[in-house]
């Protein structure tokens, strides 16, 4: 697998490259800012890009600009893994659940969990959608009061793994349960959440992420009953 790294911290960039090389991943290019990154991606045509969300010149959302630019030019051929220091569920879901797949949002320190990091990178390169487990956990933990609260513990485990972008087979593996059991759980979860059963792993992940994203929106506005029409300025 051929990978390009976009990260302004030289220390970290070198560290990531070393980790990937040790896992026999081909690091074909490195860049420290947005323009440089796009140039390197264009010239090397990698399978996947690892990009820091904040980079020079403005240190705000260069990672997202990179996603848009690469998508516009290369479609879903290049998987992109966005690294962030913010545990911002709404934002992460907004990024990943809107895409056609091949996008992931990971917390930066996930790099140190090399197996998870490399796994996520490979899945993004294959067109999967990834959301950091911490973010999924955060969402589920604080959303007990709505429909997610009706899920059993095991169903919630399955949902978490689905949201992280795992396939049914990977879920069997993680939870040490049979494939049929996983499929049964998935069906129950979909019916409890009121989602249409979606064929294909990635479509399914996107449906789950879209659901979580809706749940992560702030409460909808209540009705205007009792307010006079002129009272809004």
């Amino acid at each position, binding site marked *: 697998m051929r990978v390009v790294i976009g990260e302004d911290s030289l220390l*970290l960039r070198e560290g990531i490259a070393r980790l990937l090389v040790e896992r026999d991943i081909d690091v074909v290019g490195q860049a420290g800012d947005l323009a440089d990154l796009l140039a390197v991606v264009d010239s090397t045509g990698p399978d996947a890009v690892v990009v820091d969300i904040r980079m020079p010149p403005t240190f705000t959302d260069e990672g997202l600009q990179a996603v848009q630019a690469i998508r516009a030019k290369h479609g879903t051929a290049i998987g992109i893994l966005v690294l962030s220091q913010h545990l911002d569920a709404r934002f992460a879901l907004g990024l990943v659940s809107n895409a056609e797949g091949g996008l992931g949002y990971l917390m930066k320190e996930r790099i140190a969990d090399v197996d998870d990091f490399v796994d996520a990178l490979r899945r993004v390169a294959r067109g999967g959608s990834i959301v950091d487990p911490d973010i999924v956990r955060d969402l589920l933990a*604080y959303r007990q009061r709505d429909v997610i609260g009706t899920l059993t513990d095991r169903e919630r485990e399955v949902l978490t793994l689905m949201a992280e972008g795992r396939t049914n087979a990977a879920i069997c593996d993680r939870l040490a349960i049979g494939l049929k059991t996983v499929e049964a759980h998935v069906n129950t979860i979909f019916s409890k959440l009121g989602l249409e059963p979606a064929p294909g792993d990635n479509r399914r992940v996107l449906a789950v992420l879209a659901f979580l994203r809706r749940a992560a929106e702030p409460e909808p506005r209540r009705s205007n009953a009792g307010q006079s029409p002129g*009272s809004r300025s």
Partner: protein
Amino acid sequence: MPVARLRPLLLAPVVLMALAIVTLAKRPPFAEAPLDYLFDASTGVVLVVAGLVTWARRPSAWTGPLIVLAGYLWYVGSLYVILPDRPANELLARLPFLGFALRGYYDPILAFVILTFPGDRLETRRDRLAIGALLALMLAHSAWRLIGVRPGIGPGNPPDAPANPLFLITDTGTFVTGDEILTAAVGAALVLVAVVVLLRRRRIRPGARRATDPVLIGGAIWAGLAGLYGIGAYTHEVLRVDIVPWEGPGWTAQYLLRMLGPLGLLVGAIRVRGSSAAAIALMAGPDGPPRGIDMERTLRRTLDDPGLQLLQFGPGTGWLDSTGRASALPAPDADRATTLLERDGTPIGAIVHDVTLLDDPALVRTVAAAVALAMDNERLQGDLHAQLEEVRASRARIVEAGDLERRRMERDLHDGAQQRLVALAVSLRTIRSRLGPDVAPPVISELEAAGDLVKAAIDEVRELARGLDPSILREAGLGAAVQSLADHSSIPVTVAIDLHGRLPARAETAAYFVAAEALANAAKHSEASAVTVTATQAAGLLSLEVADDGGGGADLEGSGIRGLADRIAAVGGTFAVDSPLGAGTRIRVSIPCAS
């Protein structure tokens, strides 16, 4: 108040009216010419009323009291009619004689009033000469009568009245001749007064005669008729020629015409431009003194001068008119005069007004002082307002600088410490993978423990950065940011936020930090089991309330709550904490959020 001081005097017309009625009733020839006596008796009443009105409108001028005095003096010559026919008291018995000697002093007084109205100073040497001549001749006439009248001479002075102790002129013929000459001389002086009154009228611009014309024309007729009858008495007695009618309709008409004098004073007093009382009332509108252009309008109305201009002067701005446009102080000319308004010796403005207003310097002084006071007050209020605005702006700048600093620190943490910590975690992983299989298990577990410590440090730094500057607030707004706070709170938090889209960043930040601090306090100190955060938006105001069900008794002087109060004040909001012991804590803020 001047008007209140006058109240007892308001009874005077009533007393006078009674006096007048008695006069009418007792005069023997009343039934023959009732109209004559009616006009005669009511002239004094009209004078007193005119005097009281003038007095009320210009409490500081002598004009009013002088007219009132003239009204009383009107009756001096006829006071004897209220006496019994043969008074026992010697002084009372001499009253008719004294009245005969001292009658007529209303004339010089009224002449003075007419020549000075509406002010109280004679304007020219000619005026002073005329008044002086009249007064001197009257005094001479009184003196002549005091030393020349014996019982039996003059009205109500019977031959058996007590002897005149001042009696000197024993020859009746001499006395009568002198008396006739002096009567004619006084009459001539009165005609002279009528002439100078008319000359004074000619000095006044035709457009500015509204108030003075009734006084001057009425006054000239009054003085002229009085003078002609004085001269006429002489020609009648000595020359046997009648230059004026002494009976019939002509006689009645002269009474009517003379009434024009007092009536003219009354009309003039009502018409006169402004008054000190009105000038003071002008400064006491329902909302305090009128400002700017309203002040100018009020002055125009009060002073009956539609062309009046009010100018303001400031050291930085120069002269400004009432609409705030740059202007110049007009040079005085024949029609317009300028009165400077000063405060502590420095000019703060000017009134450009009709030159005739200067006829009443007391009024001009009073109005100028009142307007200067009001303008100074307005300026001080403006200064105070500007200073408050400056304080508010500086507080907002301090808060803004603090927010910028927080943002910078947040970025430093993310791009510095946290990056290094992540790199350190990666290094630890690399080291571990390079150690190979032969390493002793304690080393491996030590490395893993180090990795866990680094991860914990990363989490802590992230939380620290989030507290410094919540990126979610900037990116997703107050609702999402408060929901995120609630999600991470250790106590269950109910969030009910009803906002119409994004608010100005200052308002969002202020509200967010209130919610964050209140939730942190609730978690740390209150022992609450539930917290509610509500936010609504109405009429350009964001209202946020954080209420818990804990122990209350929050430290209102603590740095946390004080900091929140300062932050809210900096964005022009209000902040209230209600934290009774044992009954929970409720923090309410209102923040202007009109965008």
